[in-house]
């Protein structure tokens, strides 16, 4: 598999790397995790800037869960976002509020939420 539009990657993938051990190979769900994390981080930055507190740095982790459903098929059932932002002049609540707005505005959040659960937690970097 390769990214034809940007030519930024070419990657092997296997069934085993999808549901079992990873062995350095990616999977569709890992790519969705990368898409959701990279979408959310831009939305969070926009919301913080809009609130008058642009971030210096943000880190976002996304975990996608795929599970077997009743029919025996596999489905993406959940995406969990965990974000931390270094934001001068903001507190935990301001970051959490911006994260809720970011979740509402991120097109990949909206996409996944149509068929799975999306949860978001966010905090000020350096806070607890």
């Amino acid at each position, binding site marked *: 598999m390769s990214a034809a539009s940007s030519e930024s*990657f070419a990657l092997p993938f296997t*069934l085993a790397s999808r549901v079992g051990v990873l062995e350095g190979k990616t999977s569709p769900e*890992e790519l969705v995790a*990368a898409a959701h994390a990279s979408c959310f981080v831009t939305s969070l930055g926009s919301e913080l800037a809009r609130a008058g507190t642009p971030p210096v740095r943000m880190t976002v982790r996304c975990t996608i869960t*795929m599970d077997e459903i009743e029919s025996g098929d596999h489905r993406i059932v959940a995406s969990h976002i965990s974000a931390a932002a270094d934001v001068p002049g903001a507190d935990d609540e301001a970051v959490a509020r911006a994260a809720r707005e970011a979740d509402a505005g991120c097109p990949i959040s909206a996409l*996944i939420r149509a068929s799975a659960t999306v949860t978001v937690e966010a905090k000020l970097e350096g806070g607890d």
Partner: protein
Amino acid sequence: MAAERTANVTWTGSLQEGSGRIESVGSGAFGPLDVTWEARTEDSDGRTSPEELIAAAHASCFSMAFSGGLAKAGTPPERLDVSATVTFVPGTGITKSALTVRGTVPGMDEAAFVEAAEVAKENCPVTQALASVPEITLDASLA
């Protein structure tokens, strides 16, 4: 069995002038990959974007579902060339994912190939995750 897959991203600076990086993924298969807003909406210039990653997810998911389906039917493919093109409209979101597949499958005719491809498209978990996308198309034929 539930499977969890993880990606870590950082962003520095503003949306327009700053830049992001997919630092790592759980498998270690890729990263760091640079991401910018410009790469998302204008010239990609060697940088990826959330929508390109969704395209990669859809193409790889479909190719596995199709390959699995063909094998189960007793006609395993020699090779499948799959591409997915995702259309992103800022302010709206993803409006389309277009799948194309060209395959070499010994003992299979064109009609059966196209029918099996349609089934794979519907069953693939990423297609299901794209349920809210208005248009998902498939162009399938034997190579």
